[in-house]
């Protein structure tokens, strides 16, 4: 399914199933985690959108919501957890610290934005964003999932090999480039 482009009706159903059954890895770092929890409890409740926050770990999750400040000390752990998630995986960057460093833009120990180490699908700005903003971000992500084609996504995320002369070749095109 990640190599063959599905016919449209099947793809519609397939993406519809994927977008409404996101298991979310509860990755709260800082204050935004409190708003994340508030978004999961009774009043705002993102479970009705299909996002279930009870994944037991990254290996059983397909959505990671990074909420809070990412410090340089924590960055390797976050990267490792992201790598442990199986494809297709999505990341929502929640809060301005995760987007760009936020109020700690000049700190010596803060990574200015999670997108320095991970590819992000949706950015939710705010400090902290309201739970309704998270709902908005999740809906945006769901629309994105509905429109996307898995082979295209896999193709964009394939490893890229940096050659000694500074060229970057995708891994699957490597033998062809070597012959050329």
């Amino acid at each position, binding site marked *: 399914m990640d190599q063959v482009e599905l016919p449209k009706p099947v793809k519609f159903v397939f993406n519809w199933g994927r977008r409404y059954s996101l298991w979310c890895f509860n990755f709260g770092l800082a204050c935004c985690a409190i708003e994340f929890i508030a978004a999961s409890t009774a009043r705002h409740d993102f479970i009705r959108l299909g996002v279930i926050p009870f994944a037991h770990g990254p290996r059983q999750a397909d959505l990671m919501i990074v909420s809070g400040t990412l410090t*340089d*000390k924590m960055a390797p752990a976050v990267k490792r957890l992201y790598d442990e998630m199986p494809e297709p995986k999505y990341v929502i960057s929640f809060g301005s610290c995760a987007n760009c460093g936020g109020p700690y*833009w*000049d*700190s*010596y*120990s803060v990574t*200015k934005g999670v997108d320095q180490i991970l590819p992000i699908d949706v950015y939710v700005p705010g400090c902290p964003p309201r739970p309704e903003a998270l709902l908005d971000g999740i809906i945006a992500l769901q629309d994105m999932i509905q429109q996307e084609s898995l082979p295209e996504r896999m193709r964009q995320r394939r490893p890229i090999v940096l050659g000694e002369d500074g060229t970057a070749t995708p891994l699957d095109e490597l033998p062809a480039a070597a012959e050329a």
Partner: protein
Amino acid sequence: MTYPVLSRAGEALTPAEQEELLRDRLGEGVLETLDANGTFTVTVAPDAWVATTRACKDEPLLAYDMFDCLFGVDRSEAGFDIVAILYSTSRGQRILLRVHCEGGRDKPVCPSLVDLYAGANWMERETWDMFGIEFEGHPGLTPRLLCAENFEGWPLRKDFYLASREAKPWPGVKEPAELDEQGNPIVKIPGPGEAVGPSILDEVMAEQAKIANPHAEVSGGPDATAPPEPAAPEPAAQTTPGPGPSEAADEPEAPDETPGVDFVTPEEREAKDADDAAIASARAELSRIQQAEAREQKAAEQAAAGSDTPTAGPAIPEGQTADLRDEGGLDERDGGDDAQAEAEGDDAGHDAEEDR
């Protein structure tokens, strides 16, 4: 079992008495004392550091049993100071003990208080992490407590500069209250390549768009060279910038040039909005007048007909919309009349837009 908190508050020694007691016990170790700003500080010599703390803890008249914190202070050329704060639960008073570290700025050292108070352990580790002050007798200062393991440098020293601030100073407008000699507010004009402050962003974007796209087709709206009007009420301190922003044309905002896409510069949009708002508010006013007249007419007819049925709803006086704000809900604040009028103006503008 209740612990005796404030049990001896009446017998608490005054700062002068405490100083006398400490000098009596330690002699030359006590260098000076200071009682100001609600804190009583005793500055001691480095070799009397542990002895002083022990005296504070063990002396029955002092009885400082709670270890509050310990941290360092950078004294620029003079070196570093260590401050320890102790608190007495039975007497309800606090003492700050201060010592100047030996070794200057290169190798500051200080004896450790871990044997006296267990809480000094992490406090000293943190001070070492932030300042590089070695604590003699500490079981293990490494690894770094707060910073990452491979972090280099002592962050809280004054010669450790924040890299982000060095690379790019804060681009916002300086203190809006800062005035220069003539009494004019100081506004920071961004140079080429620097980000602009939020208040002049619209003008700058418009300039850049014009530079990037001088022959852009603009749909409708007034003359493209209309001067930009500030949409939101700006603080009085903002003066319009000089020719600075037009130089910041390194990365112009390239608008979408595909045919069929209307490109309206922000200034035109603002002018259009202002016009629309004026038209809409006039329209809303007219409709209100008409509705009021219709209601009066209907009331007159019903009164003439002599029926007892009440008129449709209370007559809404002119110039007011009946919404929650008038009921004194949670949104009202003191002196909110102007805000209310402004809000209604906005509302009228929005409604008219939706109708269109």
